[in-house]
C-alpha cells in the first residue's frame, strides 16, 4: 500500500489546521511506502526521519501540494550526495544524527516514535521565540539541532519552490513575460502569489 492510499484510506482532512503528524506514526510501519525510496546519501533511518520532518514542515493541504508530492526529500538526498564536499557531507550526517538522537530522547528505537513526538520536537525548535532561540546558543546540542532544523527547513523551502509542479502551477509562472511594469498592484500582477522565476 502506498502512502497516498494510506492517507486516502484514513479519510483524513488535510486542511490548514490538521497537519500530517497524525498519520506520521501510522506511516511508520508502512513498509511498502518506505521501500519506494532508497536514499543514496542518507541511511534508511535518516531518510525516514527527514521525510517525516519535511512532511510536517510543508504538509499537503487542500490549497496546495505538500513537499513530499514534489519529492523534496529525494531531491535533498541527491543534492547532498552530488553537491556537498566530503566535509559538508560529514557535517550534514552529524547534524542529522543529532536530530535523531534528540528526537528519540530516551526511546531506543524509531518505531517507538509517535506522530506527536515529531510535532513536539519541531514545535520546540522552529516555533521558538527569540528568547528561546537565544537560550539554544547556551546548549551545544540544542544549538546544533536548532541550526540543523533551520537548515533543513530552508533548503526544503527552496527545493519546494523550485520544483516543477510548484514553479509552474502554484507560483505565478511567466517564462516569457514580454513586458516590464515596475510598480503595480499585487492583485493585478499575480493575484497575490510570488513569481516563480
Amino acid at each position: 500500500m502506498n502512502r497516498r492510499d494510506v492517507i486516502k484510506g484514513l479519510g483524513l482532512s488535510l486542511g490548514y489546521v490538521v497537519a500530517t503528524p497524525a498519520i506520521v506514526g501510522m506511516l511508520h510501519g508502512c513498509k511498502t511506502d518506505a521501500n519506494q525510496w532508497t536514499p543514496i546519501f542518507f541511511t534508511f533511518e535518516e531518510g525516514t526521519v527527514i521525510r517525516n520532518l519535511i512532511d510536517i514542515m510543508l504538509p499537503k493541504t487542500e490549497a496546495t501540494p505538500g513537499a513530499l508530492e514534489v519529492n523534496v526529500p529525494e531531491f535533498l538526498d541527491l543534492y547532498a550526495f552530488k553537491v556537498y564536499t566530503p566535509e559538508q557531507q560529514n557535517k550534514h550526517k552529524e547534524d542529522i544524527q543529532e536530530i535523531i538522537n534528540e528526537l528519540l530522547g530516551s526511546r531506543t528505537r524509531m518505531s517507538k516514535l509517535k506522530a506527536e513526538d515529531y510535532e513536539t520536537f519541531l514545535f520546540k525548535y522552529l516555533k521558538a521565540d527569540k528568547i528561546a532561540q537565544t537560550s539554544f546558543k547556551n546548549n551545544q546540542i540544542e544549538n546544533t539541532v536548532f541550526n540543523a532544523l533551520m537548515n533543513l527547513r530552508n533548503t526544503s523551502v527552496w527545493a519546494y519552490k523550485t520544483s516543477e509542479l510548484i514553479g509552474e502551477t502554484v507560483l505565478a509562472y511567466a517564462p516569457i513575460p514580454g513586458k516590464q511594469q515596475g510598480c503595480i498592484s499585487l492583485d493585478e500582477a499575480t493575484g497575490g502569489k510570488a513569481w516563480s522565476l
Partner: protein
Amino acid sequence: MSNKEQYDAIVIGTGVSGGWAAKELCENGLKTLVLERGPMVQHINDYTTMFLDPWDFELRGEASLEEAKRQEKQARTGYVTDKAYSHFFVDDIQHPYNETKRFDWIRGYHVGGRSLTWGRQSYRLSDIDFTANKKEGIGIDWPIRYKDISPWYDYVEEYIGVSGEKLGLPQLPDGIFGPPMELNCVEEHLKESLFENFDDRVLTIGRVAHITSDKQFIGRSKCQYRNRCMRGCPFGAYFSSNSSTLPAAERTKNMIIRPNSIVHEIIYDENLKRATGVKIIDANTKEEIEFKAKIIFCCASTVPTTAILMQSKSDRFPNGLGNDSGELGHNIMDHHIDAGASGRFDGFKDKYFTGRRPNGIYIPRFRNLGDKKTEKKEFLRGYGYQGGGGRWSMPEETAKLGYGAEFKEKILEPGDWRLSLDGFGECLPYHENKMTLDYNNLDEWGLPTVTFDAEWKENELTMRKDMVSQAVEMLEKAGFKDIKTHDIEAAPGIGIHEMGTARMGRDPKTSILNEFNQIHTVPNVYVTDGSCMTSSGTQNPSLTYMAITARAANHAAKQFRNNKF
C-alpha cells in the same frame, strides 16, 4: 606552417572589442581574419540552456562537486558556475594561472567571449575621468578627451541599442537611449527620498544594452524581460558579438572567422618596422600556423592581449612588442565592488511588478567632481552605486510561523521588500600592480601562464568606508529598516573589469599606445580592449571599449586606404 594567404587585417578575439573591430574593418572593405581561441558559439543554436527552468536542471542549476572542482576560481564570483551558464566560463584546471597575490580572473573562451555574459551596463566616461590623472599627477594623462570619443559613443549606442534615462550630469554624459526600464516601488521611493534629502546625488534606472524601442535592428528584437541574458538571448535583445557585430561582419563577406585558434605571438619585421602577422596554435590539433596581415587588432581582452604582446619578443623588442616604456603588464586595474548596504522597507505590501528586469538601479558618482560641494579629502576619485530592490526576503511574521500549513502558504506569497546598494569604486593605476608571465609553468599548449601581483591600496580601502556609510545614510533617510552593511574586501578581478596593462598615453617612454590605440613604435598594431585604459573611471567599461575600437578600426581603415601600412 605558414598560411600563404595575405589578409588585410587580423582581429584577435571576438568579445565586445573584437566583434566591433571585425564589423568596422569588414564594412570598410578590408578582408579580415578573425581569430578566437575558443570554440564556435552560433547565435541562438548554441544557447543550450536558454529556455531551461530551475527544475530542468538535475540539481536546480547547482554544479555537482565534480564539476565545481574544475571551476574553483570562477566560483569565487558566487554565480558564474550556475549550470545555466557555467559552460561560458573557463575550466580552471585546463586554463591555470598563478597568484602572487589573489586575483580573481573570471573569463570565458569561446566565440563572443564575455559579450555573451557581460552585465550590459553601458556608461560613458566624461572629461572628469579623462583629465583626472593629469590634474592629480597620478599615472599618466590620457591622450584623448571626451570630444574625441563622444561621436563614437553615439555611433556605438545607436547600433547596439542602449536603454536608459537622460540626466544632464557632467560626470556621466547622456547618450542615445531607448525607453528606460521602470523602477519598482521601493526604488522609486528611494529616488524621491534622495531628491528631498540630498542635493548632490540622484538615482536612475541602469543604462543597459538592451533593445527597448521600436527601432529596427537586423536579426534582433525587443527585450522580453526573461532576465536569462547570460545564457545567450534567443531574441538577440541584448548586445553581444554573436547577435550583433559578428553577423554584421559576416554580411560583408569580408570576414573569415577561425575558432580554436590560440594566438600567442605577433610577428615583427625589423626591416619593415611593422608587424606582419601572427602565430597561432590550433587548440585541438596543436598545430602551429602563421597568418599574414597588414593590420593587427589585439582584442583578446586585457590579460591575454598583454600576454600576447609579452610573448612577441624580438631583438628590437626583447621585453615584448612595443614595450620600450617597461609599462607592459603594469598598472592593472579593476573596479572594487561589494561594499554597501541593504535594508528592508515596510510598505508597498500590496504592490509588486511584472517582468524580470535584466537591469538594476544606478546612483552616479557624486564625490570629487571638481567643485567644493563634492570634494572629499580622504580619497581621490569616487564611486557609483548599483543595486536594486525586490520582494525576496522571508517576512518576520512568516519566519515566526516556523513550519506547517500556514507557513507553507505564506512562503508562496511575495516576501518583504528589500533594496541593496553596492558601490563600484574607481581604482587608481599603480605601477606595482602587475601581471607577468611564468615560463616555468606552461599550459597544455606549451604557453607560459599568467601570474598576478596586484592589490587594493589605501585610496580604494578608504573609499570603501564611504561607500558603506553613504549607502547606510541614504537608506536610513528613506526609512529603510534592518539595514545591513557589507564590505567584502575581495581581491582585484572580482569586478571582471581588468584594465590598464598596455595603457594609452602621449609618450612612448611611459605608455604603450598612442591616441588611436596604435602601438607607438609599431603603428599597424592596434590594441583596443581594456588593456588600453589609462585610468579606470567608476563606470562599467565595455561601452568605452566599443567606442574606442570603432574609432581605432576606422582610423586603421583610413590608413590602409592611404597605403600607410
